[in-house]
């Protein structure tokens, strides 16, 4: 793939003239060595440009040149960074003919040159989003669907930006130091323990309720469904106050419990009570959908084979709904571990991690509370990802046929 020699000679001569002109200026814009390297880089760019034209797309040459000019204006004129410019144009010319790489390159420039202080947190998620849309395109999805995905993903990146940004604020050493503080360890441990307990408590009564709601028909079922959603609606502070009014030290029930040695407010149990309240809808709703996805005729078959309804539930329905139930438990756990408003009012002691972050912020400000926040975030994300991965080991309920694809 060698261009015809007359074109080559002409291009080299013109390009040489431009660079010689720069070198011969009374006050050269570029130092001689830089100028020389840039000349070589431009030669390479020209060669790549010729390849673009050779692919029989004259309009492509214009676009190629436009991209070059944009880089030129942005990096050389605006930012005045010659070596970065040389690096970028070589990259640009190399990837131009491979659309995926070109897209990633544009995002790279966007992240690392334009949004420089937020380079990683813009480039990494945007690149993933771009690759997702690209897959849709390869699979032959319509432009409308591609557009929907792209818009949604960009907005999602923007929504998650604060969290992604926070995640990479502190060095591992700072985090290690913060993690060695006993109060931080204690708070994180308490948060994990209480949320695990409250998830189990919700599962214990939420799963049977969800099963009954999914299989049974009764009057008032719609009302009951809305009732289950109520905890999502009630503001966290209101939950805290409500719990204080019912179970707090000054209430009759609270006093009775205290007399029985079962104080709830300001104890481990109090935290669990608040978490159970806020997290139960997530588990019940998801488990309900999971049970509805188990074909009812499988239960019928099980019964005709001699299994009682209870046996059928444990041997057929529950295993097939288990994946959905686990998803519900993950959601409930996530909601429980992140609860702050009700806990700080109802059970501010012992300290859970979100309350600790809040206290650190009040006492020492953003920069001191930040590492604690980052640590909490990382621990929670790690467990979340682990659980999400765990669900892939559970069976899936098939609504349609097994292989042999009959429908």
């Amino acid at each position: 793939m060698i261009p015809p020699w007359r074109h080559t000679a002409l291009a080299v001569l013109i390009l040489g003239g431009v660079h010689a002109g720069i070198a011969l200026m009374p006050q050269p814009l570029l130092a001689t060595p830089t100028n020389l390297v840039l000349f070589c880089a431009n030669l390479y760019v020209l060669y790549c440009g010729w390849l673009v034209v050779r692919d029989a797309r004259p309009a492509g040459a214009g676009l190629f040149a436009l991209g070059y000019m944009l880089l030129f204006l942005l990096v050389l004129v605006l930012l005045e960074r010659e070596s970065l410019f040389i690096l970028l144009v070589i990259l640009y010319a190399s990837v131009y003919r491979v659309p995926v790489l070109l897209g990633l390159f544009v995002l790279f420039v966007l992240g690392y040159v334009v949004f420089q202080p937020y380079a990683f947190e813009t480039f990494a998620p945007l690149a993933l989003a771009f690759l997702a849309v690209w897959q849709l395109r390869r699979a032959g999805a319509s432009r409308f669907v591609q557009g929907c995905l792209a818009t949604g993903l960009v907005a999602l990146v923007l929504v998650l930006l604060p969290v992604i940004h926070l995640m990479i604020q502190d060095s591992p050493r700072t985090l290690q130091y913060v993690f060695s503080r006993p109060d931080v360890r204690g708070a994180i441990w308490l948060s994990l323990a209480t949320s695990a307990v409250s998830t189990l408590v919700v599962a214990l009564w939420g799963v049977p309720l969800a099963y009954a709601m999914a299989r049974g028909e009764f009057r008032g079922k719609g009302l009951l469904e809305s009732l289950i959603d109520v905890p999502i609606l009630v503001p966290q502070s209101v939950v805290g106050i409500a719990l204080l009014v019912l179970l707090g030290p000054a209430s009759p029930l609270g006093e009775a419990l205290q007399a029985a040695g079962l104080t709830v407010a300001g104890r481990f149990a109090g935290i669990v009570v608040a978490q159970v309240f806020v997290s139960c809808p997530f588990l019940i709703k998801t488990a309900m959908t999971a049970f509805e996805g188990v074909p009812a005729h499988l239960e019928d078959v099980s019964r005709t084979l001699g299994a009682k309804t209870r046996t059928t539930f444990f041997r057929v329905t529950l295993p097939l709904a288990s994946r959905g139930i686990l998803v519900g438990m993950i959601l409930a756990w996530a909601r429980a571990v992140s609860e702050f408003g009700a806990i700080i009012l109802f059970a501010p002691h012992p300290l859970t991690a979100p309350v600790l972050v809040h206290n650190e912020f009040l006492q020492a400000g953003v920069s001191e509370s930040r590492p604690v926040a980052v640590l909490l975030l990382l621990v929670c994300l790690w467990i979340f990802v682990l659980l999400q991965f765990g669900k892939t080991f559970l069976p899936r309920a098939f609504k349609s046929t097994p292989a042999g694809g009959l429908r």
Partner: protein
Amino acid sequence: MIEIEALELRLGEFALQDVRLRVETGSYAVILGPSGCGKSVLLRALAGLLRPARGAVRLAGRDVTDLAPELRRVGLVFQEPSLFPHLNVGGNIGYGLRVTGLAANERRRRVAQLVEVLGLGGVLGRPVTSLSGGEAQRVVLARALAVRPQVLLLDEPLSQLDHNTRIELQQELKRIHAELGLTTLHVTHSREEAWSLADQCAVMLGGRIIQAGPTGDVRGRPACAFVARFLGIDGAAEVPVPAGCSHGCLGGTGRCDRPAGGEG
């Protein structure tokens, strides 16, 4: 033996009306009828999955009308694929034996026996998702037979299969019936299945049985024009019109308006 006496069952708009049927021990009966005639509902009622409002069901001389499905000892095969996706082939066949608490070695012996009868040797350890439609239906059959039911109820067991597999499995059903002599009630809308399998057949329309009897009799003397047409018998016009029949069913009303009690 299956005895159904004056069975009535309401299911929303639909109703089974005064269904009477008697299937002798060891015979193969086929209920024919268009979609929505209530043949599946009838099978589900026999299996105990639906509760009749009136009437009685006796299986092998035992009144099971108020018995739960798990106590009736019926084998039910559904039209839709109904293997448990979380168990492999062996687990599916052995399911009924497992839940009824049969010892593991006895269970293995019975599963092995059925695998031999149905020619499933190659697929025993496979996940059910990897089976073809025909293999899946054989496994379903093996699973139903494993618990040694007193009657076998088949709800359009072949309707979701392709032509060749259907013919093959039809022969298989015939062979198994000859081998085990199990009282079988098979529901379908395909007359070919009925002619090839049934000793005894019944035609249903709109929740009623409009004719029942030995297959040869039903074929030779259709009770009315609808039966003749549905069974593809020539000369539907010459069939005598029963008393009280308006021939509305031929226009596609989906129900028989003859006064009750006139079943053949």
